[in-house]
């Protein structure tokens, strides 16, 4: 039991693919769990989501950090014995097939939890295991559309759009972790196993719950009451946040809008929300007179929350990001630049070359994992030759 890696000793069998399930498994691995990624011979489909580099895309690399990979044909006659042996020793089982598929493969939660009553069994799906849409496949953008998020994410041109960040996959992974961790706590205290049904839909609803709650009883407005918002300046964009009346008066003063400063009808957020368009019309031309960095210096000096909109590269290069060791940089053969990987909170910095800083190739640990189950070299070679498993770096 390590202070830095509290989940040392916990064993996880992770059949999930994509990013929501794998990223949850990755967090378990980073917290010390031994996570065996069980994937098909052609690899997790995240490995082809974009342009692959050395058997990895951004998705598969991040989602598999710190795991070991066993590539196996789950439909082969040998697979049940192997997976069952892993499950018998496991604390957590994860799968992300469409509802019903895992049962047909023979690894449904009823059978596995009967075999191992302490098992925490996590299913991740698009719409959940119940309800009329349970069988629908769904990746992140489908849920951005379904939950109302895209309609709420409209540009000034009125066109809804998708955020490029896969917020629903990521939040599903985090909510899954928030369900698994207390279940592990209960398991440790003798409560036995537990079946967890986590869906992208449920996570998306929770993640954006405040907007949904708001929309249910009043007309939705753009978040933030003007002059809060993004402003075009002489040379870039600036985000300003004004909540308190004293901050509002201060910003009016700094921008030479003294009549607004003294306007009693503009005190309080609801009033400024209501008169948002009028306020924006007054502020916008003033913002255009100076560069973003000048406004930033002025506002920061006055204690107002504001930030110049940075690009990803500018963010990565920012001194504060460097000083706080926000990112680790991990090498992968074929990449021109090492990959920036953000260090999750509450964990030691991810170090290149350690098991925590390595993301497995498809089947990289077949020999090791099967050896651990008692299969000898001949048996493993035989399975490889018959296409039951795929070991890295041998071709398929």
């Amino acid at each position: 039991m390590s202070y830095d890696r509290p989940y040392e000793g916990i064993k996880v069998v992770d059949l999930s693919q994509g990013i929501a399930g794998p990223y949850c498994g990755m967090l378990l691995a980073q917290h010390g769990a031994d996570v065996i990624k069980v994937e098909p011979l052609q690899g997790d489909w995240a490995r082809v989501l974009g342009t692959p580099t050395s058997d990895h895309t951004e998705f598969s690399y991040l989602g598999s950090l710190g795991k070991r990979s066993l590539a196996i044909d789950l439909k082969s006659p040998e697979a049940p014995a192997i997976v069952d042996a892993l499950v018998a020793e496991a604390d957590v089982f994860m799968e992300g097939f469409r509802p019903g598929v895992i049962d047909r493969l023979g690894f449904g939660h009823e059978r596995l939890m009967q075999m191992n009553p302490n098992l925490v069994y996590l299913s991740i799906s698009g719409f959940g295991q119940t309800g009329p849409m349970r069988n629908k496949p769904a990746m992140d953008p489908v849920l951005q559309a379904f939950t109302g998020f895209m309609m709420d994410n409209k540009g000034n041109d009125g066109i809804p759009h998708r955020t490029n960040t896969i917020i629903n996959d990521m939040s599903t992974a985090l909510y899954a972790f928030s369900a698994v961790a207390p279940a592990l706590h209960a398991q440790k205290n003798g409560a036995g196993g537990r079946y967890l049904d986590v869906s992208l839909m449920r996570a998306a609803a929770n993640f954006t719950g405040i907007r949904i709650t708001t929309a249910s009883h009043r007309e939705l407005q753009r978040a933030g009451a003007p002059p809060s918002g993004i402003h075009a300046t002489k040379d870039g964009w600036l985000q300003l946040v004004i909540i308190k009346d004293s901050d509002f008066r201060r910003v009016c003063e700094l921008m030479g809008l003294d009549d607004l400063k003294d306007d009693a009808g503009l005190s309080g957020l609801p009033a400024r929300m209501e008169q948002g368009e009028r306020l924006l019309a007054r502020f916008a031309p003033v913002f255009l007179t100076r560069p973003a960095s000048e406004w930033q210096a002025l506002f920061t000096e006055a204690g107002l929350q504001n930030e110049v909109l940075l690009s990803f590269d500018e963010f990565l290069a920012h001194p504060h990001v460097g000083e706080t060791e926000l990112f680790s940089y991990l090498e992968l053969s074929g990449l021109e630049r090492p990959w920036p990987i953000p260090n999750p909170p509450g964990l030691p910095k991810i170090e290149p070359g350690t098991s925590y800083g390595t993301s497995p190739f498809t089947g990289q640990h077949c020999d090791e994992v099967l050896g651990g189950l008692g299969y000898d070299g001949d048996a493993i070679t035989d399975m490889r030759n018959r296409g039951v498993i795929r070991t890295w770096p041998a071709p398929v």
Partner: protein
Amino acid sequence: MSFERPYAGIKVVDMSQGVAGPYCGMLLAQHGAEVIKVEPHAGDWSRILGPSHHNHTEFSFGTNMGKRSLAIDLKSAEAPAIIDALVGEADVFLESFRPGVVDRLGFGHERLMALNPGLIYLSISGFGQTGSLREKPAMDPVLQAFSGFMLDNTGQDGVPHRVNSVINDMATALYAFSALAPALYIMGDGVPGRYLDISLMRGAANLSAIRYMSASKGEAVQVPRTAPSGIFQCAEGWLQLVILQDKDFDALCAILELDDLAVDESLRGNEARLRQAPMLIERVGQVLAAKPAAHWRDLFTEAGLQNEMLQDYPQFLAHPQAVETELFSTFDLPGLEQPLPVPNPPGIPKIIDGTPAGTSPVTGQHSDEILDEMGYGAAAIAGLRRRGVITTWTEQATEQGTA
């Protein structure tokens, strides 16, 4: 130890305000922890983030569900003894002041962890406890700007914009929980307490991890991962479509009668289609624009294609899938005509209005009860209230407060 509430018995003193800290505390409470929300007389500032009803806004309601509230003036002479007594019994301490402030108030992690060596002390801030920006205040949109997210979230008009959901607050709350839970797992196994420094910046960076990786490959502007996928404007409404595999593309071409594309060998495989994404999106878009989104949705769904009509939030709330899976619980709040829907997080029992887990406290609702449990008698509590150390919620005070 309860199967449904694994954190029963864990005690949390939660001084955090806003969303990120409180939402983390709410998850602890829903998983069974006893969470005491310590807030100023004026209440957590999330209680005034927009129009309030019965001392709550959309921000304060869901994020404090299942907690009890103690309203206390932390600068009063009596506060240290009360807080120290709570911390002495606590497993977790949460705070979200700007770095340095909690030390000046006298509740810094060094002193509290000396007082209670087993304590898990979690600080939530905008930019973290170290580095040159540590003292900068930062709410969600500031981090959307700083992290690169806003420029990446640019509309077709070329204007970057903010996502209305407080994604960085929410992600930070979830990452905070993901740091706390493993620490709680080994609590008592002979390991000392732990100090956790969680920032919105770190939450934001992790949430968008994949975008930074793509950017470093020079592919950040390649918005679509699959083609022809995206949002299409139909005769009525909008439709989101995802085409990944060849068989999806074949089915799409058949439905839209795009026979020339179906037989085009240069369009086999997702990578090949990505290279011709603009042409594909234009061709598909032309056909989709001719009929309503619902028409296409039905055809695509029947063919097994991933697609969804863009709904607004009320449509989502009313959807049979949301209703049948009990995705939301509803809560009656005095002064509101309609009950307030709050989503049920995964892995916990459905939240029921009126139960302790289904009650979001108003400021100081439990001040008397908490002090009474600590051994303060009725006279002492009345004295604390008279001297302005604590406030105790009453119906009248709340009505005056919202008037």
